């Protein structure tokens, strides 16, 4: 079972060196215990481009698809047996990156 663990941020700042170090330790643990699938940090929402090619031609729009105070700053994809395992990991991840996380199952 795989879960998308999204990092929810509402500040403009990037992770501090301390936060980065804690994230590295957490990531090493995910790998060692077989929970790691993928993870990455994302550029600011203002760097996003929306593409809509459902019509005649592709339309490109500057900016994120939804404007909100909180935005997706990065994510993990984790392998976990069930939600309890995913939630325990996410609780540690939230501590490590010092941000709120959202856990959502893949179909």
């Amino acid at each position: 079972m795989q879960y998308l663990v999204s990092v929810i941020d509402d500040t403009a700042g990037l992770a501090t060196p301390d936060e980065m170090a804690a994230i590295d330790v957490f990531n090493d643990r995910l790998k060692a215990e077989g929970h790691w699938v993928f993870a990455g940090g994302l550029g600011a929402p203002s760097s996003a481009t929306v593409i809509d090619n459902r019509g005649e031609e592709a339309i490109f729009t500057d900016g994120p698809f939804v404007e909100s105070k909180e935005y997706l700053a990065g994510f993990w994809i984790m392998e976990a047996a069930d939600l309890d395992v995913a939630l325990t990991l996410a609780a540690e991840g939230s501590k490590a990156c010092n941000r709120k996380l959202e856990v959502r199952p893949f179909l």
Partner: protein
Amino acid sequence: MSVIDVREAVTQAHHEEWARVVASLTRRFGDLDIAEEAAAEAFATAVQRWPADGVPPNPGAWLTITANRKAIDRIRRENRRDDKQNEAQLLYDDDPPEPAGAIDDERLRLIFTCCHPALAMETRVALTLRMVAGLTVPEIARAFLVQETAMGQRITRAKAKIKAARIPYRVPSAEDLPARVSGVLAVLFLVFNEGYLATGPDTDPVRHDLIAEAIRLTRLIRALMPEDGEVAGLLALMLLTEARRTARVSAGGELVTLVEQDRGTWDSALIAEGHRLVRERLAARVAPGRYQILAAISAVHTSARDVRDTDWSQIVALYDQLVRIDPSPIIALNRAIAVAEIDGPEVALAAVDHLEDKLAGYHAYHATRADLLRRLGRSHKSRAAYDKAIELAGNTAEIAALTRRRDQLG
């Protein structure tokens, strides 16, 4: 066997077997939705068949087997066109009912799944009442004054989330257990409190159905986890509260305070059972949690045959203990009420006034102030506090009692 006897047998089987049937089917089919539907169909079949065929010697086994067949029928219907292999597996998987011990554990699994912290509190309550207590969706909707369709959707969404997010169907690990048990007890306490002091103008002031379900489920958890102190504490608290039921609402429909209740009408059997549980926890010599302390406070009250015999200093000492583990302003408010009996209303009022920032929107804060001000002869201020309490209160019997008190002010 008469029609009434059969109906009673079905009701009794529903009380005793519903959770077992749902739990064992959930484990077998890994799907709450299938388990719930098949259990409901099995009970409907019992209603049809038992009057003609007679009540089977082992109703629980009959219901489990019938529900299993219903579930397999449904899965076959859904799989008809695609996977023939699934069907073949189901054909062979006709194992006998589980031994008793394992089934008890399954009910516990069901409870922990329904009370999972990833579900919203109101969803946990609804799901527990449906899956564990066996209340119907319309019954639960009525209990919480919600539209039936909205309640149905809430339960359906919860089942879908449990499945999609893979909320596990198991008793939590030892390290998570205390927190998860306290989550379950919070659900039961909420059901009980809504029954004990029901909110809303169109509902009975005391909802016996909710109280009965809360006690029944707490007894079940107590039977499944006899070593857990907080489970025993919550059950004792509920029993000692329920024991005072008939004294709590006057013939005129007003809520009667503990101090003014006719203690002769208290249920002595429930009090004896509650006291036994409290003594059992005292003898365990383990630091008590909040439900055990609340139960102990209730035990002190119910030990006094006459209100004048109440050991208020012990009650204040218990509240002091409670404040240390739960520094909530509501506990502080209740402590102040006990302090008034020892140190007088003036001292208590000073303590209550400190809580204004946190409790200004809580009717009991204003009701307590109103009472203390009344006892101090400050009628004008007391009246204003009663007005505020009446405005905020949601229980019809409590509003009636507050209104009378206000109108009796000189």
